[in-house]
C-alpha cells in the first residue's frame, strides 16, 4: 500500500491533515503531527492580531461555534519564532494565510516563499475577513484575483480554502483552478449565531463559525459537487470525527481530509483517523487511494 498523496509539488505521507485553527502550529503535539500527512497552521495575517473578546466558543447539539477572530502573532513573528520550530516536524507544514485586502495575500505569499514551509492554504473564507461587506470567498472574481496574485509570488503549492456560505463553491473552485491553484479545501465553518437566552449574542465576536459533526452532510455534498467540477485535488473538511467519516470524504471525491473540531475533544483524533484509514486500506488490499477517491460518483 502506498498511502502517499501529491498535491502540486507537495508529497504528503498520508491523506490526513490537521485543520487550520484546531491544532495550533502542530507544536503542542509533535508526536501526533509527525505521523500525519501534515498540519495546517493557525491562520497567519500580515499584522499580529489579538483576536476577539471572550467567550469565543459555545456548543449546540451537533457541534460548536467559535469566534477566535484570527488571533495570531503576525507574519514576521511567525517567520522568526514559529517556523524554526515547525521545520523540525517530520510532516508537511501548510501555512494558512488570511488577508484583509487582495494585496495582503500577495505580501504573505512573497514572504513565505523563502521560508522552509511546504505549502500555503489561502484562506478566503474566514468570517472575519471582509471587503465591501462580502467575503472574498463569495466572489469567484476575487478568488481568482487572490489566487493569481499568490501564484505570481510563490512557487510553493497553493491550496485555496473555500467557503460554502452563500455561494456555490464549485464556481469559486473553478476560479481558483483557472488562476493556478494546486488544490482546494472545503468547507470552512458555516456562519452561525448563538444567543444567550436573554436575546444577546453569546459570543464575544457576535457571530461565529459552525463546525463539528453537524457540518458533515453538507460538507460531503460540497466536496462531491466540487470534485465533479474541477480537475485539481479537493481536500475535504467539515465534521470528520473518525475514519469512517474520512472514508466518506474520500469516496465523495476528496484526495485528502482535514480533521478539525475533533482535535479539541481528543488531541490524537487525527492520528486515530489515519490509523483507521490505514487499517481499512490493509483489510481491503488497496495499493493506493484511487479505488476509493470519488467512488460515490462512479457508483451512481
Amino acid at each position: 500500500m502506498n498511502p502517499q498523496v501529491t498535491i502540486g509539488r507537495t508529497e504528503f505521507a498520508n491523506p490526513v491533515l490537521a485543520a487550520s485553527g484546531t491544532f495550533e502550529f502542530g507544536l503542542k503535539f509533535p508526536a501526533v503531527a509527525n505521523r500525519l500527512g501534515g498540519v495546517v497552521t493557525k491562520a497567519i495575517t500580515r499584522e499580529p492580531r489579538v483576536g476577539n473578546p471572550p467567550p469565543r466558543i459555545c456548543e449546540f447539539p451537533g457541534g460548536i461555534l467559535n469566534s477566535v477572530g484570527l488571533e495570531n502573532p503576525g507574519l514576521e513573528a511567525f517567520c522568526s519564532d514559529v517556523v524554526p520550530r515547525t521545520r523540525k516536524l517530520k510532516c508537511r507544514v501548510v501555512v494558512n494565510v488570511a488577508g484583509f485586502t487582495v494585496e495582503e495575500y500577495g505580501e504573505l505569499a512573497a514572504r513565505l516563499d523563502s521560508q522552509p514551509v511546504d505549502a500555503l492554504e489561502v484562506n478566503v473564507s474566514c468570517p472575519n475577513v471582509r471587503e465591501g461587506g462580502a467575503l472574498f470567498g463569495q466572489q469567484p472574481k476575487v478568488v481568482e484575483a487572490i489566487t493569481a496574485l499568490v501564484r505570481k509570488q510563490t512557487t510553493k503549492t497553493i491550496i485555496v480554502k473555500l467557503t460554502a456560505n452563500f455561494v456555490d463553491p464549485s464556481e469559486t473552485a473553478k476560479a481558483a483552478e483557472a488562476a493556478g491553484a494546486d488544490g482546494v479545501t472545503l468547507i470552512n465553518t458555516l456562519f452561525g449565531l448563538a444567543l444567550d437566552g436573554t436575546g444577546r449574542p453569546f459570543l464575544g465576536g457576535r457571530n461565529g463559525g459552525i463546525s463539528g459533526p453537524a457540518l458533515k452532510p453538507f460538507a460531503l455534498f460540497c466536496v462531491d459537487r466540487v470534485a465533479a467540477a474541477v480537475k485539481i485535488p479537493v481536500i475535504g473538511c467539515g465534521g470528520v470525527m473518525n475514519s469512517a467519516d474520512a472514508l466518506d470524504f474520500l469516496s465523495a471525491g476528496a484526495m485528502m481530509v482535514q480533521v478539525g473540531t475533533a482535535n479539541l475533544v481528543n488531541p490524537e483524533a487525527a492520528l486515530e483517523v489515519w490509523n483507521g484509514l490505514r487499517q481499512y486500506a490493509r483489510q481491503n488490499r488497496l495499493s493506493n487511494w484511487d479505488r476509493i477517491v470519488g467512488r460515490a460518483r462512479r457508483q451512481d
Partner: protein
Amino acid sequence: MKPVRCAVTEARELCAGVFSFWLQTPEIARRVKPGQFLNVKVSVGPDPLLRRPISVCDVGRNRVRLVFRKVGRGTEMLARVRTGDEVDVLGPLGKPAPELRGQDVLVCGGGIGAAPLFFLARRLKKANRLRVLIGARTRAGLLLLKEFRGLGVQVRTATDDGSAGFHGMVTELAEDQVRSRGPRAKRQNVERRLAVSREPSAIFACGPKPMLADLVRRLDPIPVWGFVEERMGCGTGICFCCALPKKGGGHVRFCEEGPVVRLNEVVL
C-alpha cells in the same frame, strides 16, 4: 496525550448540586500538580461534544478527586455518574500553580472555588504559613471544611446569610484578616483581629469572577493568584478559545498559561 478511561471509585453528592468523585488513575495521580485540571468527557457520543474542565481537588494513592458543581447540561450528565462507572479524561492539563516556600499565604475560596484550593493548600502548608478562608451563601454550601481543618491550619468561614462564621462575603473577611481598617473590622473582636492581622505575601483564590475582582480590588497591591473559570475548547492550548483579556492588551489562554493566573494582570 491520550484520553484515558478511569473507574469512579467513590461518587457522592457533597451538598445540593455539588458532587465528588475519586477516579482510579495511577498515571495522572503521579503527575498532577496543584492548579492543574482534567478535561472530562461527559457523554459517550458527540453531544455535548466538548469536554468539561474540572480542577483536581485532591490526590491520593493512585487516584485523584474531582469536586464539581452542576451548572449546565454537561455537568448534569456528569452528576449522573455512579461508583463503578468509567469516565474518559484527558490530563493533567494547565500550568501548575507556583510553588512557594517560607511565605505567609492566604487561601480564599468562594462556593465551589474551595475545591481546587484544597489540593493546593495541602501542598502549600508543608513549606509555608497558611491561613484558609472559605465562603459560601449559606452554611450548607461551605465545602470541604472537615478536610481543610484536617490540615491543621487556621480555617475561617464566611456566609452571606450569617448562618456560619463571618456574616458577609469571604472577600470582606479576607480584607479584615489582612488589614485592620476593613469596614467590618470595627465590629470584630479587636484582640482576635490583631492576633491574625498580618499581610500575606501571596494570596490564592478561587470563586466566581465578581468575587475574584472584588478580592483584587480590596487587597491591592498584594499579588493574588486566581483559579479562573471560562469556557474552554480543547483544554490543551491548540484552539485559542479560552482567552482572558490582559491589562494593557492581548489575551492569556488560561488552559495553557493558567488556569492559575496573576489576577492583578488580567481583566476580570
